[in-house]
C-alpha cells in the first residue's frame, strides 16, 4: 500500500470528463425545471395571516388535550396491534419467498428471478397505496391496515431474508447431506440455526418501522391512530393533534428501545 503514493496518477480519460459534465448539465436542467415550474405563492406564505396562524396554533399545540388521553391511547394500542399482526404475517409469508429468491437454495435461475420480481413489485407500492386499495376492498377497518402492512412488509423482509440465506455456510449442509440427512433434517439442523437469529432480528426491526407506518394508515381509513389525526385536523383541534403527537413519540421511542434491546440479545 505504501507504494501507491509514489505511482503516477493514471491519465484522466476524456470519456470520464464528458460523462461528468453531462451529468452536471442534467442535474442543472432538473433544478431549473423544478424551480421554474413549482407553484408556490410566496406572498401568501409570508403574509400577516401566517404570523397570526403561528400565534394561534403554536401555543395551543403545546397545551396537549390531556382529557382525550384515554381514547388516544386506545387507538394507539390498536395501531400497535395492526403493526404486530401485519409484521407477523409478513415475517411468515416472506420465508417461502426468500427461499425461492436465494440462489443457493433454488438453483433454477428463472424461479429466482420470478421471486425477485414479486418482491420488487411489492416493495415499489407505498403502504398508503396498498391501504387505499384494501380499504376499498374490505371496508374501512383495522383489517385493511393489517393487510396493507402485511403485504408492504413482505417485500422488504423477503429481500433481507434472501440475503441472509445466501450468506449461510454451505459446508454444514454438505456435511449433513454426506451423513445421510434428509431434506427436513437439513432444514432443521443445517439451515435454521444459521438463519433464525437474523430472521428474528429483521422481523423485529420491521415491526419498529410498521408501528410508524401504521400510525398514518388511518388517514385513508385503515384503522389506528391515523383516524384521530384526520378528525383532529379537520376540526382544527390543535390541542388534540399535540396530544396525539406526544403519544406517538412516547410509544415509538419505547418500542424502539425494547426492540433494540431484544435485537442486541439475539444477534
Amino acid at each position, binding site marked *: 500500500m505504501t507504494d501507491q503514493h509514489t505511482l503516477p496518477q493514471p491519465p484522466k480519460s476524456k470519456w470520464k470528463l464528458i460523462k461528468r459534465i453531462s451529468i452536471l448539465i442534467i442535474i442543472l436542467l*432538473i*433544478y431549473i425545471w*423544478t*424551480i421554474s*415550474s*413549482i*407553484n*408556490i*405563492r410566496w406572498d*401568501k*406564505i409570508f403574509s400577516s*395571516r*401566517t404570523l397570526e*396562524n*403561528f400565534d394561534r*396554533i403554536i401555543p395551543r399545540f403545546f397545551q396537549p388535550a390531556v382529557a382525550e388521553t384515554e381514547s388516544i391511547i386506545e387507538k394507539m*394500542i*390498536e395501531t*400497535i*396491534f*395492526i403493526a*404486530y*399482526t401485519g409484521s*407477523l*404475517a409478513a415475517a411468515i409469508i416472506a420465508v417461502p419467498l426468500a427461499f425461492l429468491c436465494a440462489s443457493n437454495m433454488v438453483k433454477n435461475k428463472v424461479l429466482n428471478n420470478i421471486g425477485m420480481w414479486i418482491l420488487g413489485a411489492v416493495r*415499489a*407500492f*407505498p403502504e*398508503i*397505496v396498498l391501504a*387505499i*386499495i*384494501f380499504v*376499498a*376492498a*374490505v371496508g374501512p*377497518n*383495522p*383489517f385493511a*391496515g393489517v*393487510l396493507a402492512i402485511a403485504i408492504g412488509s413482505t417485500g422488504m423482509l423477503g429481500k433481507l431474508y434472501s440475503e441472509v440465506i445466501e450468506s449461510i455456510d454451505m459446508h454444514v449442509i454438505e456435511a449433513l447431506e454426506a451423513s445421510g440427512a434428509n431434506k427436513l433434517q437439513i432444514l432443521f*439442523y443445517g439451515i435454521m*440455526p444459521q438463519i433464525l437469529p437474523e430472521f428474528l432480528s429483521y422481523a423485529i426491526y420491521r415491526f419498529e418501522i410498521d408501528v*410508524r407506518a401504521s*400510525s*398514518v394508515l388511518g*388517514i*385513508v381509513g385503515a*384503522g389506528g391512530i*391515523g383516524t384521530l*389525526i*384526520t378528525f383532529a*385536523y379537520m376540526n*382544527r383541534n390543535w390541542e388534540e*393533534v399535540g396530544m396525539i*403527537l406526544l403519544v*406517538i*413519540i412516547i410509544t*415509538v*421511542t419505547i418500542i424502539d428501545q425494547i426492540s433494540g434491546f431484544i435485537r442486541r440479545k439475539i444477534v
Partner: protein
Amino acid sequence: MNKPSTYIPKGIYPFKTKMIMTVALIVVVGFYLVSSIKTESFIIDIFVKIPNVFGLISDFFPPDWGYVTQIWPKLFETIHMAIIASTVAVIVSIPFSLLTANNVTTNNVLYQVMRLILNFIRTIPDIILAVVFVGLFGIGAFSGIMALIIFSIGILVKLMSEVIEAIDMNPSEAIRASGGNSLQTISFAIVPQVLPQFISFSLYVFELNIRASLVLGYVGAGGIGQLLNKEMNFLNYPAVSSIIIIVFAVVVIIDMISAKLREGLV
C-alpha cells in the same frame, strides 16, 4: 469430549435455548391472538375476503387512460417537492450530522442533546408534520416541502452521523498535527471519506420523499395524493388505477436510476 460413549445428546440445542424459544413462541402467539381479536383480523379472513379484493380489482380495470393528462401536473409537483425538499434537507443536515458524530463533536453534552432531538424528530410521522405545516402556511406545496424537509433531516442526519463516526481518524489527526484548523480538518480529512455515502443517502432520501409525498396530499400538502384522495372519494376507480399505475411506474424508474447512480458511487 470425555463424555461416556453411551451419551446420546437429546438435540443440538441446549436446554436453556429451548426454554427461551418456547417462552418466546408462547409470547409471540399469545400477543398475536390478543391483537387479532382486538383488530378483528384473523388469518382466516384473508382467505374469506380475498374474493372481495379480486372483485374490487376488476372495478379498477381498465384504467382510465384519458385521465392521464390530468395526472402529469400533480405528478410533476410531487417530483418538484421531493427535489427541493431533498436538496434543502441535504444542505441543512451537513452541520447537524457533524454535530451528532461523537468523533467530531467531542463535547459530550452537546452530542447527547443533538441525538435526543433527532430521535424525537424521527418518531414524528410525516403526516403530522404536514398537518401542522398546512395549519401554519395554508394548503399547498410549500407546507408539503417543509414537512418533507424535517422528515428527511431526521433520517439523513442519523445515517450520516453513523458514517462519520466510522471513518478513519488518522488523516484528521495528521492535519491537526500539522496545524490545520477545524474547518480544514473537516474539508480535507472528513469530506473525502464520506462524500460517496453522503450522495448515496441523499438519493435514498429522495426516493423516500417521492413515496412520502403521496400521503401528504391527503391532508392538503400538495402532490399527487390530493388527486388520489379526490378520485377515491368520488369512487372513480378507473382514474384511481391509472394514478396508481403511473405512481408505480415513476417509483420504479426513480428507484432504478438512483440504484444505478448509487452503484457507481459506492
